[in-house]
């Protein structure tokens, strides 16, 4: 187990390092280089040269990479000249909010999708199964922003149940101060996950329900409900754990769109506004942080997987 953890963590570290190389390459793909990105198109060549010298951009690329890597490791992601604030402090304000949004959506996804998938598997090829399958196909194909807009039209405009805008203000506090305003963003973000997760849960339960151990448990007099909750569920959840890890990039991307619909001031909205203003330091910082978060999430999922499923541990 310890060897597995070590090997897997080492792999994650390598991936993070490659990510930093990617982001470093992106930084140097900026039109006119970082100097033009900061000083603007009208800067004179001598100003650009001065900026490059001042910031060490005239040194060899490899040396620059290690300097940059050192800055990133120390939490220094540069300075947003558009927002006149360091990228690190911007992200510190926004990241917790996005994490809360994602966690709530993930929680809702699991709470809805797992029982739904189990029920579909038990009642497979009945009317309800077909209905749920049809709905999840449509939800899966629907762009998040369309779902969000439809939610806005119905629940905010027509029924006036929920406010159209997510809680504003700094920090995580306002989110819990205005739970009603969080309903639409969380539900919208969860829709996509529910569609995918319930499909996986359904097929995962179906895979297990015909196994010998289920028949044995039934033969020993275990009620079908007990077999389902005590035996099948535990095994069927294994692929779902991996799926949660793998769905992190989608979740971040979905959060970007959801945040832009409901004006939720998280990382996604920060990134979107930075993309519109060509605020490169912010963009690169957010890309780096989401990528690292994704790698860590996948690593955690793999570790959970190994903890739940002894076959993985022994095989490794």
């Amino acid at each position: 187990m310890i060897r597995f953890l070590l090997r897997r963590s080492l792999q994650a570290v390598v991936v993070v390092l490659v990510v930093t190389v990617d982001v470093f390459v992106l930084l140097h793909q900026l039109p006119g280089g970082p100097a033009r990105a900061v000083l603007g198109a009208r800067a004179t060549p001598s100003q650009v040269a001065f900026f490059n010298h001042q910031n060490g951009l005239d040194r060899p690329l490899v040396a620059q990479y290690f300097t940059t890597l050192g800055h990133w490791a120390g939490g220094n992601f540069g300075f947003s000249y558009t927002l006149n604030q360091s990228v690190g402090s911007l992200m510190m304000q926004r990241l917790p909010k996005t994490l809360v949004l994602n966690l709530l959506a993930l929680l809702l996804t699991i709470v809805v999708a797992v029982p739904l998938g189990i029920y579909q598997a038990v009642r497979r090829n009945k009317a309800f199964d077909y209905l749920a399958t049809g709905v999840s196909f449509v939800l899966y194909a629907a762009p998040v922003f369309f779902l969000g807009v439809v939610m806005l039209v119905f629940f905010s405009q027509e029924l006036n149940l929920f406010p159209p805008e997510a809680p504003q203000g700094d920090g995580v506090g306002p989110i819990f101060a205005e739970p009603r305003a969080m309903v639409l963003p969380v539900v919208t973000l969860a829709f996509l996950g529910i569609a995918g997760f319930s499909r996986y849960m359904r097929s995962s339960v179906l895979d297990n329900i015909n196994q010998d151990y289920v028949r044995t448990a039934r033969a020993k007099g275990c009620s079908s409900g007990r077999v389902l909750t005590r035996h099948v569920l535990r095994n069927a959840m294994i692929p779902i754990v991996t799926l949660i890890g793998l769905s992190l990039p989608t979740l971040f991307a979905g959060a970007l769109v959801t945040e832009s619909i409901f004006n939720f001031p998280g990382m996604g909205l920060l990134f979107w506004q930075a993309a519109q203003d060509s605020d490169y330091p912010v963009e690169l910082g957010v890309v780096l942080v989401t990528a690292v978060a994704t790698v860590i999430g996948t690593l955690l999922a793999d570790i959970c997987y190994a903890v739940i499923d002894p076959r993985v541990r022994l095989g490794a």
Partner: protein
Amino acid sequence: MRPVTTAVAVGENADSEGGHDASTVGLPSGKPKSMFRLGAEVFLQNRLAVVGLGVLGVALLFCFVGPFVYHTNQINTDLMASTLRPGQPNHPLGTDQSGYDELGRLMVGGQTSLEVGFAAAFIATLVGTLWGAVAGFVGGAVDSLMMRVVDALLAIPTLFLLLFLVTIVRPDIEVMICVLGLTAWLVPARLVRGESLTLRVREYVQAVRVMGGSSRRAVVRHILPNVAGTVIVNATFQVADAILLIAYLGYLGLGISPPATDWGAMLSNGTNYIFPNYWWLIYPPGVAIILVVVAVNFVGDGLRDAVEVRLQRR
């Protein structure tokens, strides 16, 4: 037939009959069916897949032939006729805030979405297949390095990478296709690498090698046809993903520059009119995206069944 081992017989048969399925040689009864026929039969039995194909066909006709039948001006604005309700004699689906006819705009926007979707999926599949195949066959340190690159790029959420790239280059359709294609090749790369790793050690490939066949022959005649199924199925899902991604970019206002448009940009525009309740600017593009993506996914599912059955019956 000479009394030789089956593997040689298979090899000769494949030579003489080209694409025909050679595995039935050893079976006691039944006419040999081509792999393609077998797959096509299974595909046609899947009713949803056929419906999906039909919807896709209608969408293609609507977007590419439609403008020749239903003429609209999608270049000049007409502010006198802005945000007309549906049901006008000249504008059955109303107009948007610039006076563009909504039905005609749906056709033009669909052209962008479909063109970009299919072309980007093609590029992604091509690049991904090459990358995965090289990694899988060369193996060793090269393989690890290439796959860590894939891992690292996969860790960056596609939408973020895409948004960053389109802020560097102002996108027209060709650029958009390249950018989308070059961010979406990761999944096929992983798939093809995995497939080629398993196929390389399969008995029939080893048999070719033992028989003195070159590795080029093993790859071209035996491994590629087997990978092709997986790749094609994945390409279908890539089309669906690319159509959604271009819609996201359009929605976020960083898609193709006006007056060109796509379904996502149309919907984005419609969201400004949620409160005056101009539903005809919101639902048509949204429903169009869903219909096409669902259709493509159905076709992909049907193809997957077809490929799997073909492989099983070999």
